[in-house]
């Protein structure tokens, strides 16, 4: 399995997920740095993501939209806080309005990504997601509900392909 560990701290409203990949750190970093790579995994198969702008520098922005089965296009943005390629990326992730501007009525999360080279040549990736509040967490996940619904399908797909991706 790729995912090695999940730690949830409900008091601090933080989830930390650790995954290991059988690939050097360079290609793993590219999954974040290259917008064409990013859009292949950020959204679920039923809501594929299209990255419009992608500036991974402190203060820089990433803007994207996802396309749903009914043609709806929810938009999102990142505001980059810290970058130290290829080891560290920290950004705020939020929802955007139809024009692509940050929607201030919607909550945001802080995502911290850490990549580390493993002695066997693989790469360990840790992603820590922190919610600003429980209300925000509820609102955010209610928005992501459809994504949640499509997960089951994606997971079965994933399981069928585990022999390809398993380490």
């Amino acid at each position, binding site marked *: 399995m*790729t*995912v090695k560990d*999940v730690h*949830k701290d*409900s*008091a*601090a*409203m933080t*989830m930390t*997920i650790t*995954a290991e*990949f*059988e*690939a050097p750190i360079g*290609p*793993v970093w590219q*999954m974040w740095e290259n917008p064409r*790579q990013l859009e*292949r*995994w*950020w959204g*679920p198969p039923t809501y594929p993501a299209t990255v419009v702008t992608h500036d991974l520098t402190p203060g820089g922005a990433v803007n994207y939209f996802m396309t749903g089965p009914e043609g709806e296009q929810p938009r999102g943005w990142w505001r980059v806080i810290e970058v130290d390629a290829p080891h560290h990326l920290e950004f705020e992730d939020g929802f955007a309005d139809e024009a692509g501007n940050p929607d201030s009525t919607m909550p945001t999360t802080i995502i911290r990504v850490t990549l580390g080279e493993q002695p066997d040549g693989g790469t360990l*990736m840790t*992603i820590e*997601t922190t919610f*600003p*509040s*429980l*209300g*925000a*967490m*509820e609102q955010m*996940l209610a928005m*992501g509900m459809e*994504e*949640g619904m499509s*997960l089951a399908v*994606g*997971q079965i797909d*994933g399981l069928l*392909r585990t022999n*390809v*991706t398993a380490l």
Partner: protein
Amino acid sequence: MVVGSLEQQRADRIFHALSDVTRRDIVRRAMEGPQSVSALARHYPMSFAAVQKHVAVLERAELVNKRRQGREQLVQSNIDTIRHAFRLLDQLEAIWRSRIDRFGEVLAEQNEGAAK
């Protein structure tokens, strides 16, 4: 909407209560079993009254319950509220697990491509 704003107020109280490191620590300790306020107070470099105030904030957010036993006030975590937060984190976990699955698949495809 009235219901929505009440729910929002509740969420705000929970958020405010959990925004303080001492209060988070009190919730963690009280999850292990009832703790007297005086026993809790010994863990922090602050007065009994200050700890009592923290407990009152947690109580208003329904994160802990307080009951009297003799001379002691016992503080216990309200598991339902905490569980609610945990369920939300479960959903987040599912979203990230699926992202990481796809992440791994795309990486593996590339590796194959590079090997050919």
